[in-house]
């Protein structure tokens, strides 16, 4: 294959700016597929992804384009996840490309995520060219957006294709621009093999299918390969490229190409995203730069609502883990919730996706505890522990000090909402860094925020306080010392371990009060009065009471009613079984979930 006729590129955009739709049009117009074969959005082939309108796993497609210069080009379009939780995966997908199309909404202009993604692309030395999408919207203002792109990002935008991906306007221009503006790949097929893993999926027949970009050398069936970071070795069984929604085998993959390989690998752990594949018999000198081990940022407890389903949950997590190396879990036990798992995620979205998949694909009813971050606890004896479960916090007398993770956050917001967003950041213990005006009506706010302040409902609050106009991006900055305490909830004087969480000392009272109020509504009346208390270090800081039930009686029960009345009693008894027993108190599953969202508006 002539390397000069290959283009490896991706599309970067803010969420909802039309990335997936443009990808669909490109695939359609290159003529590999009939319209009938088109799924609504080909690259997002997981049901869940389609419903949420986001792309979770990076995928790729190889298409053929007959350019105006009369040549046939191979396009490898690599899709990238569009959420900050998956920043590392995005960076590896970008590294597999030589260029990128930047899609900007003609009405909304540049957003925080646009900036974050485009900088990420530029950092990877990609040649980026912009297209202005949704030009058919009444509110479209392409000239303003062009200027904005040039002013803010500093890339040429005057000849940017003006398109409507939705209505198929301007797609040919985009395809020509790919040929002209995105460079052909470099590298030589004669050098030792050096291939970048940018994704992998587990297939029960073929084992792990490794998605890779061949930077140097060649790989084919029978090549003995080694993953340089994990050290795993294997013999290649099959190589190929990506058809739309299918894998198409070929003889070999050579420098400049994007494709897949299988080698009867049993676990995605062995094929970490970002790792370098080389030839055991003719290894390259150095791995490709940029590999890092992905760490979980957010933890929570996941328990089956029905304790008997514990083995099912374990099996389901095992299966998900096959395809998702960034999911971590280990067994734990809660007094209130029984046997479950402490699970680690890249972020809250990742958590929600896993939770939904467990519920939807594996039919599990889950109770999750409040998500938390990893705290560093420095003990007086010099030991440091990384705390993921609040229940494991050592006795305060053994703690010297604690540290929490802090992120650098960028919030793009129209000027009218700057005040309310700054107030929100202030409330969330944010440290103000700067305000940069993108244009007269829009600014980029920079803050440093404790991670545990943004994993709850920050995104929701941001949206509601900016009427949906603010956008948000962050990356981990590091750890900082902080005045943290463990907030415990006592129900009828019994501590409920699954409700404990770590909170900044200054917010403890407020959080405790809200938790008690919320729980008061969630816990049904019992035959006796139930005090609900919030405590820090054994000291009660808030209290609510669930009053005793006054009446629960069926006034009438005669001959014709008996079967029906018995069913009512059975329902009552069944309802109790589904609750969690803590001391004498039955707590509905929903109570554990409701405290996750303590709305502050």
């Amino acid at each position, binding site marked *: 294959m002539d390397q000069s006729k290959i283009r490896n590129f991706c599309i970067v955009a803010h969420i909802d700016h039309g990335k997936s739709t443009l990808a669909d049009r490109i695939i359609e117009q290159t003529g590999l597929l009939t319209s009938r074969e088109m799924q609504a959005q080909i690259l997002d082939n997981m049901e869940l992804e389609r419903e949420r309108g986001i792309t979770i796993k990076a995928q790729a497609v190889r298409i053929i384009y007959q350019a105006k210069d009369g040549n046939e080009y191979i396009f490898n379009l690599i899709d990238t996840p569009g959420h900050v939780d998956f920043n590392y995966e995005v960076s590896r997908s970008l590294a597999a490309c030589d260029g990128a199309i930047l899609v900007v909404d003609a009405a909304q202009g540049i957003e925080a995520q646009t900036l974050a993604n485009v900088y990420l692309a530029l950092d990877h030395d990609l040649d980026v060219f912009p297209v202005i999408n949704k030009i058919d919207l009444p509110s479209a203002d392409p000239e303003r957006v062009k200027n904005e792109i040039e002013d803010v990002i500093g890339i040429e935008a005057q000849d940017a294709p003006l398109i409507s991906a939705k209505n198929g306007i301007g797609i040919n221009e985009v395809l020509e621009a790919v040929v002209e503006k995105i460079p052909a790949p470099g590298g030589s097929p004669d050098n030792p093999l050096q291939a970048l893993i940018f994704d992998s999926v587990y297939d029960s027949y073929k084992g792990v299918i490794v998605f890779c970009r061949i930077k140097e050398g060649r790989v084919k069936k029978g090549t003995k390969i080694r993953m340089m970071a994990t050290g795993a070795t294997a013999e290649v069984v099959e190589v190929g490229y990506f058809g739309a929604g299918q894998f198409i085998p070929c003889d070999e993959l050579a420098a400049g190409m994007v494709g897949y390989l299988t080698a009867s690998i049993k676990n995605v752990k062995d094929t970490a995203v970002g790792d370098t594949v080389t030839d055991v018999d003719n290894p390259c000198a150095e791995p490709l730069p940029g590999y890092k081990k992905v760490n979980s940022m957010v933890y929570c407890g996941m328990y089956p609502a029905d304790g008997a389903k514990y083995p099912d949950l374990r099996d389901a997590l095992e299966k998900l883990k096959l395809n998702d190396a960034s999911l971590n879990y280990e067994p734990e036990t809660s007094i209130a919730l029984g046997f479950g798992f402490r699970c680690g995620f890249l972020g809250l979205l990742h958590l929600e996706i896993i939770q939904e998949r467990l519920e939807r694909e594996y039919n599990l009813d889950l109770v999750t505890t409040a998500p938390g971050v990893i705290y560093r606890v420095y003990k007086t004896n010099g030991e440091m522990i990384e705390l993921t479960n609040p229940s494991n916090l050592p006795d305060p007398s053994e703690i010297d000090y604690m540290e929490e993770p802090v992120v650098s956050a960028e919030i793009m917001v129209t000027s009218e909402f700057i005040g309310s967003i700054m107030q929100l950041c202030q409330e969330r213990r944010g440290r103000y860094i700067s305000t940069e005006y993108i244009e007269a009506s829009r600014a980029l706010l920079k803050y440093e925020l404790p991670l545990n302040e943004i994993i709850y409902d920050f995104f929701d609050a941001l949206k509601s306080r900016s009427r949906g106009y603010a956008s948000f991006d962050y990356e981990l900055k590091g750890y900082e010392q902080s005045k943290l305490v463990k907030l415990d909830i006592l129900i009828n004087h019994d501590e409920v371990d699954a409700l404990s969480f770590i909170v900044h000392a200054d917010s403890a009272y407020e959080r405790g009060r809200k938790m008690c109020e919320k729980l008061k509504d969630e816990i049904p009346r019992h*035959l*006796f009065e139930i005090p609900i208390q919030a405590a820090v270090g054994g000291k009660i800081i808030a209290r609510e009471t669930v009053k005793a*039930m*006054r*009446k*629960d*009686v*069926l*006034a*009438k*029960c*005669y*001959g*014709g009613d*008996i*079967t029906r009345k*018995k069913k*009512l*009693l*059975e329902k*009552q*008894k069944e309802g*109790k079984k589904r609750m969690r027993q803590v001391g004498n108190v039955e707590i509905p599953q929903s109570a554990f979930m409701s405290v996750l969202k303590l709305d502050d508006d």
Partner: protein
Amino acid sequence: MGDVESYVNLLRREIALRAPQYNKYQVISIFFGGGTPSLLSTEQLGGIMDAVKEGFTLAADAEITVECNPGTVTAEKLAYYITCGINRLSIGLQSADDGELARIGRIHDYKTFLETYRLARAAGFQNINVDLMSALPEQTAASYQRTLAQVCALAPEHISAYSLILEEGTPLYVNQKDYNFPDEDEERELYYMTERVLLKAGYHRYEISNYAQTGKECRHNKVYWQRGDYLGLGLGASSLIANVRWKNPDGYADYAACVEKARRAAKERPAPERPAGMEDYVNYLRKSGCQEVQPLGRQEQMEEFMFLGLRLMEGIEEAAFLNIFGVSVDAVYGETIARLAGQGLLERAGGRLFLTPRGIDVSNAAFAAFLF
């Protein structure tokens, strides 16, 4: 669709077809209820009574009740009831306050009730029940007290007093936002007031919602709570015989089909003995058009024994439990009894177990505890 006349004919057929199965029983009570049986003409009701008398053996002192709504009976009709052997009347008053009656969609007023009541007495009824309701929309302690006082002054032998439960789908449930309902505390106050006032007026409470003068407890209702055998005849009627529960279909056409099945089954062969041939018996019932035929297992019988028996103020007799099930109530429910007693819901005295006043308030919680 069948009119009333054809329905009565069907019912008479059903009575005649099923009665032979129960020729070993002596009938101690008959209850005409559900809907407003007093709307039937004298001939219609008389026809039904004739069929019953023809098919069954009635005890000399059988309690025979007809439910009626105020204004649906005349002096002639009532006199006819007496000649048929009907000796108890149950009148659905609900409230003596005309505003309250209107809000719950009743077409009668208090004056109409008074007329009906007086006619009944004049006809010779010496056993009358009056149904009352508390917790009605816009009802106050004062208005409810007036209702109680007015009814007590009439001195019916029996009073059923229910606290309103809003059932989903009813007009009142749908429009509940339009009205002030007594809150939980007020509702309990009205409920406690019932017992206080009626006790003073010479009634004793024998079940959660039922009060009677000495010896005037409703024999029929006690059969339900003590799990005696009863046979339901007519549209949607429920039965319990020899620990099998079933019911007749609710729709007219289905009911007609059911009676036809009963005819064919009876023609084929006589009903099998029970409970010796229980399986055979259950199959026969199903074949003869009975629906939801459910033979009760031992545990279900125990559950029912407890949650029905505990509706009665006298509760359940421990010796009766032992006698029926061959095992002591403690051996089966010891733990539950101890827990409920510890919570102050249940008491034990004189070889009986019964609910405390607090236990009555939250009786569902207590009953549910006896389910396996």
